[in-house]
């Protein structure tokens, strides 16, 4: 099946599009930045990490599959996230999915590999800025200390009551959220941010 983005003239709408203005308002204080990155290309890849196909796929992408649990590997405009011992999420820019699917399938060369375009399955939300960790700590049980979960770390976990793929970057975090949960997570983030965006200095200690 041909990737819709390649041919369609119809208008796309991203899962958190309705939150753009509220995200912007919440980001005005400077301590926190909330935003959606819509329409990223996302390919779910399942392959035996020890198979020749896994290596060929890495070569084809120009990014070797990260084998250490909970890590990401990047190269060019691609980022490969470890999701499980034989599962990765390849994330690329808008429009890259059809080409990626083709490249990965080619690299698989008949071996047992699953390549599934899941670009619209999840959307990406940015939680960045000084208070990003504080906001996430309200709902994320992982230790987000920079020494523990710094740039290059990835985790599938839960934020409040929704499953997320949490990716740590140089400037804060990206949450890959199932599209149907995007509105819930957006509402939750905005609610969790109240203390951090209304106090001008970002100082929430009331005492």
């Amino acid at each position, binding site marked *: 099946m041909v990737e819709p983005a390649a041919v369609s003239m119809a208008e796309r709408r991203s899962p958190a599009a309705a939150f753009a203005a509220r995200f912007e308002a919440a980001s005005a204080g400077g301590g926190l930045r909330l935003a959606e990155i819509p329409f990223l290309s996302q390919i779910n890849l399942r392959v035996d990490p020890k198979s020749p196909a896994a290596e060929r796929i890495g070569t084809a992408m120009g990014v070797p599959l990260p084998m250490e*649990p*909970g890590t990401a590997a990047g190269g060019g405009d691609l980022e490969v996230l470890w*999701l*499980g*011992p034989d*599962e990765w999420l390849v994330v690329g820019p808008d429009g890259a999915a059809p080409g990626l699917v083709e490249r990965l399938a080619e690299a698989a060369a008949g071996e047992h590999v699953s390549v599934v375009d899941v670009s619209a399955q999840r959307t990406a939300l940015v939680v960045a800025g000084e208070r990003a960790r504080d906001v996430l700590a309200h709902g994320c*049980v*992982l230790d987000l200390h920079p020494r523990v979960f710094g740039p290059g770390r990835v*985790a*599938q*976990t*839960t934020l409040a009551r929704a*499953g997320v793929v949490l990716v740590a970057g140089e400037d804060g975090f990206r949450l890959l959220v199932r599209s149907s949960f995007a509105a819930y997570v957006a509402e939750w983030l905005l609610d969790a941010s109240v203390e951090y965006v209304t106090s001008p200095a970002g100082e929430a200690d009331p005492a």
Partner: protein
Amino acid sequence: MLLIPCPWCGPRDEAEFHYGGQAHVAYPEDPAALSDEEWARYLFFRDNPKGLFAERWSHTAGCRRWFNAVRDTATNEIHAVYRAGEPRPVIA
């Protein structure tokens, strides 16, 4: 809230996991060959020890892998985790 060491993701909170009951209960080779009693045993009867228990967990909110653990049901202490298909380790 137990801290369960997922063999892949490391220690994570219990709430990220799905419990799967007793480990090492294989689906019968040939269910049709079993008596009703034997089939009932497979369907409904599981060990329920007070003490060490080899049990299954799935890291559903994480890497979605099933694995096994040996836990003491009297103290909740997890003595070992191991991957599906591996033999139950001997706990002294």
